[in-house]
């Protein structure tokens, strides 16, 4: 399993994140929005079928979060911590390798 490109940010934010007011409201931690696990917004979740994937990268290009990154073989990996379940990836997938299914509670 590939690592998220934001792994270092997530580790750093967990250690250094603070809500203290800074002079000039400057934010010193780049990419610190990773502290928000927006995956809880989701109603439908994307289900990935690797056998149908042709690695066209369209889901990777279109994901607005981005909650899709690539593994060593360039297959998409879905980051369910952040995926908001918009379904753009499933709608644009040319081979229907991504299907939206209802989130299990």
């Amino acid at each position, binding site marked *: 399993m590939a690592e998220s490109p934001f792994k270092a940010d997530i580790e750093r934010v967990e250690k250094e994140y603070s809500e203290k007011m800074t002079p000039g409201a400057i934010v010193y931690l780049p*990419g610190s929005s*990773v502290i928000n696990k927006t995956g809880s917004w989701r109603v439908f979740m994307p289900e990935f079928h690797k056998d149908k994937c042709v690695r066209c990268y369209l889901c990777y*290009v279109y994901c607005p979060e981005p909650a899709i*990154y690539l593994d060593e073989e360039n297959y998409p990996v879905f*980051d369910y911590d952040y995926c908001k379940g918009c379904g753009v990836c499933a709608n*644009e997938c040319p081979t229907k390798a991504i299907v939206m299914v209802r989130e299990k509670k």
Partner: protein
Amino acid sequence: MAVRKPPITTREYWAPGHAACAGCGCAIALKLATKAFSEAMEEKYGDPNAFAIAQATGCMEVVSAVFPYTAWKVPWVHVAFENAAAAASGIDAAWKKLGYKGKILAIGGDGGTADIGIQALSGMLERWHNVVYLMYDNEAYMNTGIQRSSSTPYGAWTTTSPPGKYSIGEDKPKKWVALIAAAHQIPYAATASIGNPFDFVKKMKKAAKVDGPAFVQVHCTCPTGWKSPLEKSVEIARLAIETGIWPLFEIENGDFHNIKIQSPGGGAKVKREGGKVVAIEFKKPVEEYLKLQGRFKHLFKQPEAIQVMKEQIKAMWKVLGVDVILP
């Protein structure tokens, strides 16, 4: 099976966890814009991180930088609605003095660019600063609750242009800021859309590589303000190109006689003369684009309004020197 390389860099400058709505088209645009910029900076200066961003207030500013966190992984400054271009000019002047190599990206929404920030934008273009201005055009003030802007297209519902017995919604044609920017005779002005992301990336890279000011206007879907289904965000943007609503063009050095027009796709027949596009026959009707969006729902009760809209589309293409036939 041979595996192609990813079409775009895997470096990330736009982190997840930002507060944009699910299916936000503008978030796609900003993600791709930063990646394209980093690729261009690597090719031009050998440093993929040689850029900074000045962003006007707007949807994407509000969702990406809620204190105390930020979604940006690049030096970024928030400025007021009207002065993203002015702040970018200042950064450019400072970089020149300090001898930094790189380019500044100024970002504004359609309200921050077409209405409030146009004076600062015009000044920046005229002073020839080394800045790319990216206007993400979601066709209303979505951040404050869907009020009309001068970039709102004809017939659209917004909270300040409500359709009803005496109104058909927004009743004036859209303002094309890319054409206004091109009239400054700047090296590069273009329109793009998230419906054709590879064209958008290509244009952003080209804009980032020119010496001097450049302007890119990108069409992005707003599922909240357009009342459209979340998963159709990219499909709607693509339909806008394929039905003729959104032209993809590039104007270099303000040369309005040699506008480069990209083929819209969707089965449209493009007629060229000497390498120049002179006529386009669209095969997909405008209604296909309109029916996916709640903001145009009322137009289907007033078919004459759709006719007016088609006339306006033809007039807009005429400005670009293209005769169009709409089904």
